[in-house]
């Protein structure tokens, strides 16, 4: 830990940046999937149909009780057994996305439940349709409550994306490991990468606080 | 009889005029606002002093400064002659350590508006905690002492109950017992009945009255004008960070000299019909 070889970092800069780009791409796409699927799940958790609600609940519990690595291995190594043959990166995106959906479902569910029933009753008495109620009454109020835990969950997703390196996706951690293998150094690759994740996550956290302020004043 | 007394009472060393609390030129600021603008106050052994005044007059802040729960900015607070909160060396003043503060504050007991009982301990647990942790009494001795003092406030039967199982008046009586168990020389009361439902106020005032008759030195911030009138030896009226008038309650209430006290008493009379 005495000296840091800045030349090495400069030489491998492009590789690490390429990894960062992949990480950003993967996380962005996975987040979108997770948010959308999570919203759908949250709505499903509120239906009166017991079977549908039960299935949604089971999905959420499985995702919360199983490590992401198991889900990825199932999709990547076990996938071919049931006809799913995809490259590592799409598997990673889908895995992260549908895994995260379980968590977003809980966040959105709590958001829906935070709105007093009385408001919905009043809306129905005044004649608003269920759809209007969701879009005009529930979601605008939920946003303030939902943004912080959602931003937090996205940060968690970014950190979990490092696991994709294990199924050979060339994202940031994978490239750092490659750099470490090639140079036999440990400090430079992993600390450089830790700093990059840290900065990325701090940027997301800041954006999150900005979004939260905008949403609360809306 | 002395053994029945709730209070430890004056010792042979105290003379009737011994000053238990001395406050000189006390100033306290919160940011730019001066909340206490130079307070001078004496409480003598066995005196019962009541501080009254409108909200924002600084009365609670004064009490908390005397307890050194707030750090005062200028002036002196002395407990039995010893400076509280600061060390003085060669005329220069520095903040005292927690230990030094504890030592000077040892003879002061305090009862809070919101009781501040520890919810995870029973009434007896609350009362014996300091006996065991500070005085290092054995559990058996502490519990014997604790039951004794709970008996004095009429709550021996509730020794094994948790705070959430007690009424407000009972909780405050446990709080008084907890402070009493440490045998303080003086007790501070910060609006002891303000958080209680009206029906429960009486039981707490009864305990406080008994303490007074047994000779406990008491400094009380309160809205209970009746208590001030009948139990206190001295009443102090504060407004806007200053002591405006003080004297015997009967005289103060019957013949207020200042306009502000007159106005304050009028609002009180209007409220209570």
């Amino acid at each position, binding site marked *: 830990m005495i000296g840091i070889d800045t030349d090495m970092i400069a030489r491998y800069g492009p590789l690490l940046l390429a990894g960062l780009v992949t990480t950003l791409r993967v996380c962005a796409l996975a987040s979108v999937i997770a948010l959308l699927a999570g919203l759908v799940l949250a709505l499903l958790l509120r239906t009166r149909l017991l079977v549908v609600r039960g299935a949604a609940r089971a999905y959420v519990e499985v995702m919360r009780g199983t490590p992401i690595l198991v889900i990825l291995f199932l999709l990547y190594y076990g996938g071919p057994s049931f006809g799913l043959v995809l490259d590592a990166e799409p598997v990673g995106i889908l895995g992260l996305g549908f895994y995260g959906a379980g968590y977003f479902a809980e966040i959105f569910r709590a958001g829906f439940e935070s709105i007093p029933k009385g408001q919905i009753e009043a809306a129905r008495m005044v004649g608003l349709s269920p759809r209007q109620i969701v879009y005009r009454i529930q979601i605008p109020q939920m946003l303030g409550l939902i943004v912080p835990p959602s931003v937090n969950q996205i940060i968690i997703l970014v950190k979990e994306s490092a696991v994709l390196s294990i199924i050979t996706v060339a994202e940031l951690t994978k490239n750092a490991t490659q750099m470490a293998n090639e140079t036999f150094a440990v400090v430079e690759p992993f600390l450089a990468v830790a700093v990059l994740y840290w900065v990325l996550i701090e940027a997301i956290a800041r954006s999150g606080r900005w979004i939260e302020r905008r949403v609360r004043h809306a | 009889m002395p053994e029945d007394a709730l209070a430890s009472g004056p010792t042979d060393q105290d003379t009737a005029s011994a000053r238990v609390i001395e406050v000189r030129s006390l100033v306290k600021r919160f940011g730019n606002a001066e909340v206490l603008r130079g307070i001078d106050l004496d409480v003598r052994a066995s005196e019962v002093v009541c501080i009254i005044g409108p909200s924002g007059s600084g009365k609670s802040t004064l009490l908390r400064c005397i307890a050194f729960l707030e750090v005062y900015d200028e002036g002196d607070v002395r407990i039995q002659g010893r400076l509280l909160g600061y060390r003085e060396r060669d005329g220069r003043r520095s903040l005292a350590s927690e230990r030094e503060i504890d030592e000077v504050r040892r003879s002061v007991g305090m009862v809070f508006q919101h009781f501040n009982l520890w919810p995870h301990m029973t009434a007896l647990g609350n009362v014996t905690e300091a006996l065991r942790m500070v005085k290092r009494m054995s559990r058996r001795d502490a519990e014997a002492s604790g039951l004794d003092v709970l008996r004095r406030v009429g709550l021996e039967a509730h020794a094994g109950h948790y705070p959430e199982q007690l009424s407000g008046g009972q909780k405050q009586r446990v709080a008084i017992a907890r402070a009493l168990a*440490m045998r303080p020389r003086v007790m501070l009361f910060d609006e002891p009945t303000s958080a209680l439902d009206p029906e429960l106020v009486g039981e707490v005032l009864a305990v406080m009255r008994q303490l007074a008759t047994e000779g406990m030195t008491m400094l009380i911030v309160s809205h209970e004008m009746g208590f001030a009138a009948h139990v206190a030896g001295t009443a102090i009226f504060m407004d806007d960070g200053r002591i405006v008038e003080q004297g015997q309650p009967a005289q103060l209430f019957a013949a207020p000299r200042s306009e502000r006290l007159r106005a304050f008493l009028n609002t009180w009379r209007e409220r209570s019909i």
Partner: protein
Amino acid sequence: MIEILADNYGVLIGGAATTVVVSGMAIAIGMVLGLALAFGLLSHRAPLPALCGFYRSFWRGTPILVQLLIVFYMLPQAGIDVAPLVAAIVALSLNTAAFQGEIYRAGLLAIPRGEIEAARMLGIGKWTIRRRILIPQMFRLVLPPLINEAIIILKNSSLVSVIAVTELMRRSQQIASTTFKPLEVYLIAGAIYLALNLVLAHAGRRLEQRMAISGARA
């Protein structure tokens, strides 16, 4: 799938046991460190809150896989030769300490200031206040997020398979490579993790109920 289970259940149970031990130790060590961190964050003594904040920021803001690799590769460089198992426990502990520290900090702040003032007026010392008044109440308050964190640690422990610790994930990989049935094996592994987490969640709820009954709510 049943035959795979039957043939390998000894190995799987051994792996699950290692998983539980690794997670348990990380939680326990993390608890001690986390408490220290929480008090450090709340302290008034100049460098302490900043240092603790820095620690918290790093260990919460970087992926656990990267942390694992850093600890695993850097310890030998610093002259400390440890078994992968020890490195795994160290990394997981340092990680969870940051999260637990934040949990405990929030719990401590929820205790009314007045209780501390009453203790100070009775002459009770700072450390006694922490031990007898703050920490007992804090644990009741933070039990839900703490159980949640325990579940997360259990899932994170699957990652130590990458540094060759033979816990459940690694054993599963070994079995998958010898049986050529990754789908079945990882489904079994997933089920075991799920079972462990369900037991943990259930134990957590029972503990919460027990603590509520002993009459201690603020």
